[in-house]
């Protein structure tokens, strides 16, 4: 085995590789960028060298710096992890040229599979079915358009050098075709350095089945069974499981054999994944990923193997440690990926600081790369953790995962936890019959309903308490209850005006407090709805809220003007906004414009009824040898013009009136 391993990656996968190293007694070191100094992987691995700035090209993609580091720390092998340089044949070559071992397939294998067209060719050679499409890939938009016209719709454009769903467009109608081509090519160029696209038929609503293979580089290949990853959004996997449920055993056998056959034709070395689409009793080769995959965990769960150990074994010994019949399968595993993203907003990655993170420990494997205080930036993948549930059967695994997702606390930024929760409850997912178009079709059904008002009430109480405790030394902040202390008139009316506005998403609710009762309960009025709650601090960010006879447990964290709450309803973000806002003026748009100087009107551009855009010139006045132009303050319609060319106008005399369009009023309020 190796003297020392350099883990050239970050996040959960770096932590995960380090765990295997620790178990095997292999010393390990890692690298980090300037923004990752306090990252979890730096802490977990124990030795880390800063190799560059935040952008990946300066750090995690910086071959020279990584090689230099490997030598400096005395490593004799490099594990590239997932993403970054893991599929870069030039990096693999550079590692080997430096006399180090690259833990991964041979460079020529990577080359063969990194180009989707050559991968397809290799599959055909191995007699593995592929999706019909254009012969070759193209970089001329007109040629692509021409090819698309010759094929039955729908078709799919794919960046030939791509992966991870980038540079992919589905063409269902000819409308907007050229725009779709242009945008796919732009994305391909930006992501992979090549704009070339491949065109093939779009196999809609198929299941995504993939096979984990391992080879010794001399033609011996075995498989570690299949995984199903049909639940995808934006062509990216979100739930993965092994084995595939509801897959006929005859089809499973065909797919497993095809994968092994393909790997054998290239004398595959190391670990790899062969991906297929399955539909209507047919299967099609999709691609082959020459690296560890994010979802390798579910294969580990059902086979009992450590795939990183297997990688290290093959890399150091060039042999397979077991025969096919020694690989056995038992039980069922499902993985949910927790992302920092806005599920409701089209799965856009969200960024920010993780204020609080807590994973359930029992009966669950958690691979995470973040801790409280970690920052999710736009520089790297926004994945927070993988939750891997294992059970005797699929039902048990699913139940464990569902529970785990509900109990996972990540506060401080938007996550997909709620989305995962509703996804795992959906009957189609429960039945195990979802295909890869499922999320897109059912997206409206899957979004979680807005949080119940009780949570807003609890958030309001916690916020006021926080304000009090922050100013404990100041009696003018800290005295009395939520409503503020008053000389008592025996009625103890709450203030007539709301304390603040609490916003969740686009919904904003005024919050008023009633007096705190002797038992500590407070009445919170949310836009007229009254909720009485007693919130007890359980320490460590945990609170118990009693609402009548019901008790809700929540976990809370606070931002600058934000309360993050986690409860059985998932995680919710509430923004605290002042009740009075200087922008709250109902008619702050004054459309009556007056002359700023005394002077002669030299030009009138508009007449009553004209539509004008903001900043459009309306009237030009001459005064003190200067021209002054009166412009429209907002989009609107001219109501009246109070002057003509040649008029001499007094200062402050109204000259024109504009009525704002509904839109501009809305924007201003």
């Amino acid at each position, binding site marked *: 085995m190796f003297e020392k391993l350099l883990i050239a990656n970050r996040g959960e996968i770096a932590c995960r590789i380090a765990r295997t190293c620790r178990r095997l007694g292999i010393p390990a070191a890692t690298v980090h960028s300037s923004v990752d100094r306090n990252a979890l992987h730096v802490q977990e691995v124990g030795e880390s060298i800063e190799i560059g700035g935040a952008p990946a090209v300066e750090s995690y993609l910086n071959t020279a710096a990584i090689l230099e580091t490997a030598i400096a720390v005395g490593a004799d092998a490099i594990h590239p992890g997932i993403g970054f340089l893991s599929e870069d044949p030039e990096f693999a070559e550079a590692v080997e040229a430096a006399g180090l071992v690259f833990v991964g397939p041979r460079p020529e294998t990577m080359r063969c599979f990194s180009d989707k067209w050559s991968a397809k060719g290799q599959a055909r050679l191995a007699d593995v079915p592929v999706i019909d499409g254009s012969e070759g890939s193209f970089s001329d938009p007109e040629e692509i358009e021409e090819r698309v016209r010759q094929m039955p719709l729908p078709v799919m454009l794919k960046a030939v050098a791509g992966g991870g769903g980038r540079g992919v467009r589905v063409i269902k109608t000819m409308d907007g075709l050229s725009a779709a081509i242009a945008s796919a090519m732009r994305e391909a160029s930006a992501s992979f350095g090549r704009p070339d696209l491949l065109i093939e038929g779009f196999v809609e609503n198929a299941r995504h089945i993939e096979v984990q293979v391992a080879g010794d580089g001399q033609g011996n290949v075995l498989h570690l069974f299949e995984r199903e990853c049909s639940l995808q959004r934006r062509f990216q996997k979100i739930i993965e499981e092994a084995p595939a449920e509801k897959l006929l055993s005859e089809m499973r056998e065909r797919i497993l054999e095809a994968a092994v056959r393909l790997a054998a034709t290239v004398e595959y070395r190391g670990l790899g994944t062969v991906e297929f689409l399955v539909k209507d009793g047919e299967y099609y080769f999709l691609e082959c990923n020459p690296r560890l995959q994010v979802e390798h965990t579910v294969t580990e769960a059902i086979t009992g193997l450590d795939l990183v150990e297997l990688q290290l074994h093959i890399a150091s010994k060039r042999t397979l440690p077991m025969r096919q019949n020694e690989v056995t399968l038992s039980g069922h595993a499902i993985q949910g990926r927790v992302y920092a993203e806005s599920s409701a907003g089209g799965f856009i990655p969200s960024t920010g600081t993780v204020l609080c993170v807590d994973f359930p420990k029992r009966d669950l494997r958690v691979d995470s790369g973040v801790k409280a205080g970690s920052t999710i930036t736009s520089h790297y993948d926004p994945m927070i953790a993988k939750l891997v549930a294992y059970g005797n059967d699929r039902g048990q695994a699913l139940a464990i995962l569902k529970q785990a997702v509900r109990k996972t606390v990540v506060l401080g930024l938007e996550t997909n936890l709620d989305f995962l929760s509703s996804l795992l409850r959906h009957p189609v997912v429960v039945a195990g019959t979802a295909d890869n178009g499922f999320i897109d079709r059912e997206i409206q059904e899957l979004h979680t309903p807005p949080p119940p008002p009780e949570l807003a009430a609890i958030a309001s109480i916690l916020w006021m308490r926080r304000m009090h405790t922050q100013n404990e030394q100041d009696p003018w*902040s800290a005295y*009395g209850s939520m409503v*503020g*202390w008053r000389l*008592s008139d025996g*009625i103890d009316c709450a203030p*007539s005006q709301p304390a603040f506005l609490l916003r969740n998403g686009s919904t904003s609710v005024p919050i008023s407090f009633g007096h705190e009762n002797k038992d500590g309960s407070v009445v919170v009025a949310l836009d007229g709805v009254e909720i009485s709650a007693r919130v007890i601090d359980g320490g460590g960010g945990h609170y118990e809220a009693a609402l009548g006879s019901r008790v809700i447990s929540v976990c809370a964290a606070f931002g600058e003007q934000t309360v993050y709450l986690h409860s059985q309803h998932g995680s919710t973000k509430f923004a605290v906004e002042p009740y*009075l806002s200087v922008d709250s003026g109902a008619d702050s748009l004054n459309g009556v414009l007056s002359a700023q100087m005394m002077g002669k009107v030299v030009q009138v551009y508009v007449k009553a009824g004209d539509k004008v855009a903001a900043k459009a010139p309306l009237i030009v006045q001459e005064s003190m040898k200067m021209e002054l132009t009166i412009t429209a303050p907002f989009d609107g319609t001219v109501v009246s013009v109070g002057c003509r060319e040649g008029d001499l106008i007094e200062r*402050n005399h109204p000259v024109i009136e504009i009525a704002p369009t509904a839109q501009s009023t809305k924007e201003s309020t």
Partner: protein
Amino acid sequence: MTVIMSTLSTHSESFKRNQAHYKNLVSELQARRQLARRGGKQQARDRHEAAEKMLPRDRIDALLDPGSPFLEIAELAGDGMYEDNPPGAGIITGIGRVSGRVCMLIANEATVKGGTYYTMTAKKHVRAQRIAWEHKLPNLTLVDSGGAYLPEQAGIFPDEGQYGSVFHQIVRQSAEGIPQLAVVHGACTAGGAYVPALCDQTVIVRGQGYMYLGGPEITYAATGERVDRENLGGAEMHTRISGVTDYLADNDRHALAILRELVYDLPQRPAHTIPPQKPLPPRYDPEEIYGIVSSEPQVPTDTREILARLVDDSRFDEFKPSYGDSLLCGFAHIMGFPVGIIANQGVLFTESSIKAVHFIDLCCKRNIPLLFMADVPGYMVGREAEQGGITKAGAKMITAMSSANVPKYNLIIGNSYGAGYMGMCSRPFGPRLAFGWPNGRAALMGPEQAATTLAMVQRQKRERDGIAWSSEEEETFKQPIRDQFTSFANMYNFASNIWIDNVIDPLETRTVMGLLLDLAAREPVSPTTFGVLRM
């Protein structure tokens, strides 16, 4: 520090009797507050809200920070003085936190006679300014006033402490850098217009706020010019043309939001000069004070038992406990703030007065605020007392108390009669604030002594004239005097006249004092130079 050991029995008959009596007093206090806070007549309030204007108390609630205390000042002013009983004298004044800064809020009650100034309105406004000035609190004035109430001109126009003093104090505070901010919420004529015009920064509400020295009618009468009120003194005109006002708001809420921003932009106030320690509750239940305060005038109250329920952890470090023991002097904390307490435990003797002088000097040297808790029938009279120099000792105590520049507070917890009223730092001696408990009584002398004294004079006169005076006749003579002194001595009479700043429930005392000691601790105090102390 010494913890007071209470010897109180909460099962005694007298405790229960006192407690029942006091609960009635507190109910009466709360009923009076309810009345004062009601605002104008329902019709007037409905009309105000129909015009989409916020009621003044709603303006205050919206302006204050969420959860901010609001310590109302003189809310019972004018109570019972006017036939139509303008609640709170038609103006609301109080201290609260706005944009993180403690401010004095002054709001005209436009639903009471158009927010015009009665005698007590002007006095209350002036008093609120005075408190703000002493504590360097920004003044936030929510102007909605028609100016002077003409029939009351004697009480508002000619003298100091009246309407003119409102102007004068705006200017002098501004000169000292105490921010003066105003919102014009309604039509402000003449004097009403000067208040916002004199302020540092002024917001006006469009279509609702007007300012002019003479309204359209007066302008027509005086000059024959016909002009509508928008052109004469509207918000647009004053903000765009005359420059009388600085910020134009669309409505009350918008105006208050602008005002909050203006406060936010003020420079930070200084931190505490006396850092508080962690506030501790008294070891004995403060509610037991209800059963301690004697319900019968002739039965004295044990002040030490009251102190045990007022000060932090019931710790009272008594000064000279074995000397002049009819006056309790000692160091304590209230809500974490250090305070020197001077509290009566009977008649003031020469020794007790001398002890007070020594203690006041200590507090001035150490910059510790002084709380005077009055329950005193007066200074001792009689040959022994006079020969012992009681007048000299009393003068010395008054000189020391009057000279003291540390923050002083007056709290009438029982009787406060005669020169005792003076010696215990009542209004004339410039306490930062003065309060009375609902059981408090203050007058030149007690009702019985007053009746007896006057009857004696009457009897001597009659004896000189040789007119017989039966004891029945004497009793008929005395009763109205007793009644008059009793009603005069009532704390609501003092509150109505703003001779005290509020009547407070004993249970509110700790909170009120905590808020005030906090304000006092934020500003440095000038050193004390004593007047000549007669030796």
